[in-house]
């Protein structure tokens, strides 16, 4: 369990069903789907991955283990892309 924090300089643009995260530092842009965008929206520097997974369980009625696994996987990917501190 971690408490992810967004890096500064990342802008968010919703385009249709997709979301574009633009890193002003690296000049890279990343297209994410609705699920990943939902998780991104809840990364606020105070919510842990378990907290976000619990919200996922409440909103979408998914099993807790699956929710935690998915949130960790998505935040790991955000970290790999340099979008998190």
């Amino acid at each position, binding site marked *: 369990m971690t408490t992810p924090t967004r890096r500064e300089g990342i802008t968010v643009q919703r385009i*249709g*069903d*997709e979301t*574009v995260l633009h890193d002003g530092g690296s000049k890279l842009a990343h297209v*994410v789907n609705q699920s990943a965008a939902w998780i991104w929206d809840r990364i606020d520097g105070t919510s842990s991955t378990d907290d976000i997974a619990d919200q996922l369980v409440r909103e979408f009625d998914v099993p807790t283990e699956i929710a935690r696994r998915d949130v960790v996987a998505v935040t790991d990917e955000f970290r790999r892309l340099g979008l998190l501190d």
Partner: protein
Amino acid sequence: MSSASPRADGAVERPTHEAVYDVLGVRVRLVSGARTSIDLIDESFGVFRMADNEGAEQIIELRADAALDLMDQLVHTVISSLHRRGLYAIHAASVAHRGRALVLAGPSGAGKTTLALALAALGFELLSDELAVLDPASGLVHPYRRRLHVRPGTPELVRGLERIGLRERRDLGGDIAWAVAQEEVGLPAGGPRPLGGIIILLPRTEALPEPRLTAIGSGRAALELLRGTPAASVDFSGALRAIGPCVSATRCALLEASEPMATAAALVTWFEATPDD
């Protein structure tokens, strides 16, 4: 127009040649030290020639071998001026059918011009083979009627263009061999049309037996369009914010092309199945 004048020491200044162009309301006066430079640019941009240079931006290049540099500067000036007016010049071909524009984007050499010409041979209106001028505020794609730039190999692939390949080849940069007016090949020209579809051409890596169209989301389509939009290199976020709404309202797909006329026929089916807004 050319000019030459004596200097105070009696020597005669080298003559300069000039031409004024009005491209989508952007006025540019080119001055060159070589007549051949202006002649070469006229082959592509002659349709935009004006007699009056009032309010024109000036581009001066006196080197005799600078024709292609001069052409690049002309296009860059036009694109920058259009951006200041809120228009985005996307490196893409554009055609129109049943009142809606279809933008064909992709890297150089992916086959945008060939596909645009093939669609025109099937009755689409041709808006441009190089720049899709998008007005995000209205959602309209404007025509850009510079002469078509045709590479060797294309005339043999598109119905009605065969005789173009028999002409003397020119060096217009980027492997372009011919600048062809739309009227010369009987292609219908279109006016501004609302955006109705976006196709991203993938570079050809193998000969496909038939074309492949794969739906993509509008976020990915917007990024691919901005890849070929000079204004996005200046202000990416601003460009994405500007074009996002009209892209999100448009059906988008990746295209792996096969033989041009077969690919065009597949696109006609795809585009006609796209619902109107």
